[in-house]
């Protein structure tokens, strides 16, 4: 399998070349091994799900992808090049954005301001010119505002544009977080449980948005999710983790019929 060629999945869909490759990643916290020797890749334009029972190491994996954790062993390749240990903001500049399992928005700020923070890495004007609000700073803000407004329109949150985030219900906060991540126009979007704690209707809306983002902007998406129905419907390929190890990798159907995965989820008898 060539990394730069398109790849046809077992169920016949064509997805792009490898964007990010994780090779033999092992991550330890002191004596605890969170991730053991995991290898998988994320391909251009696909929706890649990471699933697994509680404590399987999914969020840790996502944090390795986002550069927040540096694995003790193994290598991360981004666009064919080995990635040295980097600061999270450098990762953001490379075109990777993420949302958090527990919402991490600025509660006191309006939705618009929160979304604008997603543009921060793109702003070049100095602190002084921003303060006097002349020339470049003003022009930059207008340009960035336009991008944010497109995202707001896309996610249909126009009516709460000026509302402080603290006043919003949970489901909408999740959507605002997605908006902030999208505002940075990412190539790779990491979603950590985008649908946790939502009701059926909110989940349907969110699924629709995730598909639309993928479809409309061609954004590659890696997501962690617990709702199996959602994962199986949304994703092109699924990685299954259990106790820090990879126990399955493939299309939703392949994974669904994988005995190791079934055992991990349903338990296995020890007689």
């Amino acid at each position, binding site marked *: 399998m060539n990394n730069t060629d398109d790849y046809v999945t077992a169920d016949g869909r064509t997805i792009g070349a490898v964007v990010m490759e994780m090779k033999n990643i092992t991550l330890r916290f002191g004596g605890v091994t969170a991730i053991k020797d995991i290898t998988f890749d994320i391909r251009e334009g696909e929706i890649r799900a990471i699933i697994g029972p509680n404590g399987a190491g999914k969020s840790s994996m996502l944090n390795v992808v986002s550069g927040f954790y540096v694995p003790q062993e193994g290598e991360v390749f981004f666009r064919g090049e080995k990635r040295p240990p980097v600061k999270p903001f450098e990762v953001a500049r490379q075109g990777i954005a993420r949302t958090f399992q527990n919402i991490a928005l600025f509660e006191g700020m309006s939705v618009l301001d929160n979304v604008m923070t997603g543009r921060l890495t793109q702003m070049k004007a100095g602190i002084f010119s921003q303060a006097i609000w002349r020339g470049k700073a003003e022009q930059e803000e207008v340009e960035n*505002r*336009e991008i944010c*407004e*497109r995202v*707001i*329109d*896309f996610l*249909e949150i*126009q*009516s709460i*544009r000026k509302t402080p985030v603290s006043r919003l219900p949970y489901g909408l906060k999740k959507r605002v977080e997605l908006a902030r991540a999208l505002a940075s126009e990412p190539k790779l979007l990491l979603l950590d449980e985008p649908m946790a704690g939502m009701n059926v209707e909110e989940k349907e809306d969110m699924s*629709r948005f995730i*598909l*639309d983002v993928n*479809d*409309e902007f061609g954004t590659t998406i890696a997501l962690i999710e617990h709702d199996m129905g959602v994962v199986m419907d949304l994703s092109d390929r699924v990685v299954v983790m259990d106790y820090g190890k990879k126990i399955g990798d493939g299309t939703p159907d392949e994974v669904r019929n994988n005995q190791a995965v079934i055992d991990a989820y349903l338990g296995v008898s020890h007689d």
Partner: protein
Amino acid sequence: MAQSDMDATNMVSLPALLRRNAANFGSSAAFREKEFGIWQTWSWSKALNEAESLALGLIELGIQPGDFVAILGRNRPDLYISMVAIQMAGATPVPQYQDSVAEEMEYVLAHCGAKFVVAGDQEQVDKVLEIQSNLPDFEQMIYLDGRGLRKYDHSKLHSFASVMENGKNSGQNSKSTLKDRENALTYDSTCVMLYTSGTTGRPKGVVLSNANIIETAKTTCEFDDLKKTDEIVAYLPMAWIGDFIFSVGQAMWSGFCVNCPESADTLSTDLREIGPTYYFAPPRVFEMQLTDVMIRMEDSGRFKKWLFDYFMEHARHVGGNILDGKSVGFGSRIKYFLGDLAVYGPLKNTLGLSKVRVGYTAGEAIGPEIFEFYRSLGINLKQLYGQTEASVYITQQPDGEVRGDTVGVPTPGVEVRIGDNGEVYYKSPGTFVEYYKNPESTAETKDPEGWVATGDAGFFEEDTGHLRIIDRAKDVSKMSDGSMFAPKYVENKLKFYPNILESVVFGAGKERCVAFINIDLSAVGNWAERNNIAYSSYQELAGHPKVLETIQSHVEEVNASIAKDKMLAGCQVHRFLVLHKELDADDGELTRTRKVRRKIIAEKFEDLINALYDGSSSIYTETEVTYEDGRKGKISATLQIKDATTNSVADLAAQ
């Protein structure tokens, strides 16, 4: 405007009006829409350019004179422009209710044999694709918002922009075809076809000619002195005749600007930003706004509440009179002025109604308290009476002659007479041409002389010449003792309470009246919150004993007020129940314009009606519901049935 009078004789179609406006004041705003947080403007010249390109694009796609083109979507300038473009290309636009489910749409699209569809977004496109196998005439679809459509099969799909682009680049052939078709339009050509909401049976396609629309627009613009400097906000369904007359007919005739909100959720913000001078809303919208204001006042501090109550009390006494220019004492005027600074002004501003010069409500009876509330604030709110078949206007209230219980005098050019059975008949330049493919219904409704039966019962007040509407003629009937039964009259009285959203009264041919009631979730929910009453669903709140108690007191107050009217005293509600679900257009219980479908409700909830009459104190029931995405489910509930005290006329007379 001298210019418009000058060439008024040639103004026989919408495209002609658009050309006139583009020539006379091309740079003025024709449409605005808030998009990406900014109001984007279409000048009259830009609107004309777009309409021409689109019409050419449609011709390239193979549109023929006489074709029907369905319009699906929320109010957007591009959709309004496409209606004119469709006419330019010789076809007829058929705007649809954007929230109708696929099967409703199927009937209408199949009935008119729509060859083309202009859809707003993916949701609308999906609906048409779902039913396309049952639409033999369907050929091509054009969409505005391409989100989510990238991977769709584009053999029958075109983006709005690409059709316009094709139109712009089209050859001389298409251009001359367009010119010929536009020149062929006459005053008698069909302007638009609108489907009636169908309180009874299937919707009917009402064919309206250019003469209908333009003549109506002309007289009514003169009646209220509408000018090109006026502003309206277009937010009511495009499939409704009112929106067509206001946002297309009158807007094109007098050249005022039509503003489209960013989304349905942002309407109140957008209203505030635009500050329309000409405003229309059905009673429901005014009711909801008032409920909203009252809820917020309940939540406000003690001083603010006192200030509000104090000045609103004053406004109730003098506000309406000041608006009508009647004589009011100097002291009262000063006090009203202060009230305007402290309460009325800021409140109107919050509602987005500060600049309203002419406001109308119609469609249903509006509660006298609600009507007076808005008028007392100094908003020139008036009533009109009309229907699709009349291009809206039958009667309307002139400035200074506004009252809550009448619908005004006949609009200039309209003749009105009352039939022997009390039914209202009219004849006007706006009278529709025919029901499409339905000569029997046309003949039933419109007699050879052009008189149209409205189906409403009413009478003219002798001293003022104003028309009063009692009820739908076919709904007015007799109870078993021969006294008059007018359900709408009672329902309206019930609905005037903020806690009651909808009610349906039964009693034709029976000894006594009974009622179904729907609570208003926002009003009752707020009350529950303030009183620490926990509830998890609409159903649970509707069945709460305290809620039932409150509703009972409302019903009894209504009974007391009905008992005062000798003719209708028999309509007092003896027993009622609060329904476990909201009546919904998706379940066929209401029309898309939210009118009660009495017969369907009576059939669907037959068990409940029986229980109301057989004296039982509760009943278990199961009801099928349709979700927004078209799936069906079942809800079951045990409903409490309450008795309400009634008053005999004799008792009141004794008092």
